[in-house]
């Protein structure tokens, strides 16, 4: 009988610094039922093969958000008329990571159409400059916090510039993004207090985005939001306002909350593997393979949730219809049958097929951004930090088990060159 408390251990904050031994136990049963306080339980896929298969299974749905249910206010007009209407709109215009084809495909195609090669390349050059400026600002420091000083501001600025969010408004997004990112933590989906907060946050950021979209219609600029607001794809997809608001919120939140973990986990891993840090310092061309290995070894998104639309026979078990699924991407990335010696950080691995960006139709839209932002940040850190030393290992972690990463990463240095 498989241990059904392992998912609870994954969620347990005490295990945030190193969940990998728990993942290894989970892999002993490629797909297992885990207790989650409900009778049905949650089904966890933890091997590379089962995750890859379920990502490509048409019976697996991404519509895992419970129906919108705003808190009541006590004002009858609001509670009886405005609230149901708002709930209904919210359900109809969910962000596309929580939607299935064909709606998902149409929304995603509109984003991909604006996410042009030219825009990506321009931001690539821009992110090198941003990293240089951020580090220049800390030139005389003897300690940096890799999160606050670089890993957080870089992706925020990149995604805001890409979308055309005015620089002076960037700080507003910090709180909004952190709050909304909790929607990826399975337990928070059913926590009334968190949901109420998320609804309020969504209203606030939605109001802001609505105004910004109006502005982009009046005065279009060369940014993604202007493109999405004013132009259809060649196939004729043009988002309505509510989908456009939801989609831009998704992009801004994803741009805030994931790459920060990739950069921070990257520096942490390099400081734990000083030989690799030194090799990167001497040879920045190693960055791409090093980042692929990071995406395997410490993926910013550890797991995603799904739901079954029908019973699925897989790996000797039957997942029932309507079951909650957890695809434990970070566990699949340590699957010894695909990655020999999986707990070793080895950028020279060949032929890796990591699940760090997920897979299939929901494969990370921002993957190119994540790659070059991490490349810009890590090569600069390797080159410019003099004698970097971790002040706390493990560092303090943020709350999330799905979006997992350090709260801050204090590094003592002898200066910045």
């Amino acid at each position: 009988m498989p241990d059904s408390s392992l998912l609870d251990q994954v969620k347990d904050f005490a295990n945030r610094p190193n969940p990998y031994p728990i993942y290894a136990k989970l892999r002993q049963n490629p797909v297992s039922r885990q207790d989650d306080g409900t009778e049905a339980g949650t089904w966890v896929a933890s091997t590379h093969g089962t995750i890859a298969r379920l990502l490509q299974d048409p019976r697996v749905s991404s519509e895992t958000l419970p129906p919108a249910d705003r808190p009541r206010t006590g004002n009858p007009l609001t509670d009886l008329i405005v609230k149901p209407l708002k709930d209904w709109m919210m359900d109809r215009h969910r962000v596309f990571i929580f939607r299935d084809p064909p709606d998902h495909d149409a929304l995603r195609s509109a984003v991909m159409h604006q996410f042009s090669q030219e825009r990506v390349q321009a931001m690539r050059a821009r992110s090198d400059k941003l990293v240089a400026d951020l580090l220049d600002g800390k030139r005389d420091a003897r300690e940096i916090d890799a999160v606050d000083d670089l890993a957080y501001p870089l992706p925020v600025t990149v995604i805001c510039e890409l979308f055309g969010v005015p620089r002076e408004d960037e700080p507003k997004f910090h709180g909004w993004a952190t709050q909304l990112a909790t929607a990826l933590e399975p337990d928070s989906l059913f926590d009334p207090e968190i949901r109420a907060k998320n609804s309020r946050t969504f209203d606030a950021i939605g109001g802001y985005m609505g105004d910004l979209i109006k502005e982009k219609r009046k005065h279009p600029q060369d940014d993604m939001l202007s493109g999405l607001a004013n132009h259809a794809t060649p196939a004729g997809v043009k988002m309505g306002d509510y989908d456009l608001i939801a989609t831009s919120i998704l992009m801004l939140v994803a741009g805030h909350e994931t790459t920060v973990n990739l950069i921070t986990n990257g520096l942490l891993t390099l400081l734990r593997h000083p030989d690799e840090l030194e090799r990167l310092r001497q040879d920045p061309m190693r960055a791409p393979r090093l980042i692929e290995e990071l995406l395997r070894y410490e993926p910013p998104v550890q797991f995603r949730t799904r739901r079954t639309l029908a019973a699925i026979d897989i790996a000797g078990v039957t997942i029932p219809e309507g079951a909650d699924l957890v695809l434990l991407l970070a566990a699949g990335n340590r699957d010894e049958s695909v990655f020999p010696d999986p707990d070793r950080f080895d950028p020279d691995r060949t032929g890796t097929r990591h699940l760090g960006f997920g897979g299939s139709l929901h494969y990370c839209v921002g993957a190119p951004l994540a790659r070059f932002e991490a490349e810009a940040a890590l090569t600069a850190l390797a080159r410019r930090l003099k004698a970097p030393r971790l002040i706390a290992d493990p560092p303090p972690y943020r709350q999330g088990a799905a979006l997992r990463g350090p709260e801050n990463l204090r590094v003592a240095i002898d200066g910045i060159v």
Partner: protein
Amino acid sequence: MAAPERAVVVGAGLAGLRGAEALREAGFSGPLTIVGGEPHLPYDRPPLSKHVLAGAIAAHATTLPHGLEADVDWQLGTPAAGLDRRAGLVRLADGRTLPYDRLLIATGTRARPWPNPHEGRLSGVFTLRGRDDAAALRQALEAGPRRVLVIGGGFIGCEVASLCRSLGLPVTLVEPGPTPLARVLGSAIGAFIGAIHAGHGVDLRCGIEVEWLEGEGGRLVRAHCTDGSRIEADVAVIALGAVRNTEWLDGAGLSADPGGVDCDGAGYVLDAEGHADPRIAAAGDVARFPHPLYDGRRVALEHWSHAVAQAVHAGRLLAGAPPDAAYGALPTFWSTQGNLVVKSAGLTEGADAVAITQGNPASGRFIALYGRAGRCVAAVSVDSARWLPAHAELVATGAPFPPEGAATDRPKGVEIFEPGFS
């Protein structure tokens, strides 16, 4: 000491090459000769009707990389013309003979020519099979013809027509059947795909035939159709399917005809009495074999992945390292038609029902699942290839049709309809 055994591979295409490599990998170390009718080393055909015609790569850039040593004797430019099994000799068109102890037949197919040879020789009339064909047709398309006429709405015809559209060329496709691809996919699914091509500007004329091609001064100027219409065109692509290259086996005493050379379940060729010849195997387009997934129905498959897999199987067989099981890979193929990618798993032939299980034909993205006598026999994806593996599993396991279960984008109430095979 006996002289080492000699192996001959007749056919220098994908199957011949992969078969020769498999012979070597399975330990055959004797003299190895590969015979090819064309003067080229083995090359890859799928890009010919796509990237080469589009001008993205040159025809000669399709040469396949291979893992053979320099000790292979390449006999290129002279096709095989006869087989004497009693003497163990392959006769070439120039009269030379090649002795063999083990023989792989991989002579493939050639394009079916336009039935009137005089019209077929008009300048501007092309077939598309080899890389020289592709180079010549590319040149003609580059010259900016007034209109391209594609005769035949099979996969090659659809690929060429959609490619012409992406080059901005006016194109008319004439197909005698009710829809394009009707023979392979049935007219129900063929109609959906035809509508997509028509939407991209292909002038689709189904249910008529080209009666004759008119030339002026040796150049094609127009085509006359059975409904009395004329099509003004200076380029015509004859896409009427393929003919299997089996003539050279006449008189060899093998069970061979224009439909292919027969093999047994193991992969050895059969003689006219139905006995296997243990010195000879066949693979690729030319090999007709009983497919274990389809109740042993005899099929000859013109698919890229099949050519590779069956050639590897045959190579091992001839090397004396026979694979554990009879060859029976699930047939798969793909076709890139402009921006449209059609992929399939299984055999639609004989299907008595079809259902759209995902997506929506009107949107141009869908999966069609074919059933025969209550079992899933084939799945076809149109711009939805990521869902094909899940459907291929239903086909490989012979799951009940109509399928159970669900899908994120399954239409409400899956409709079962006639596939429309004539």
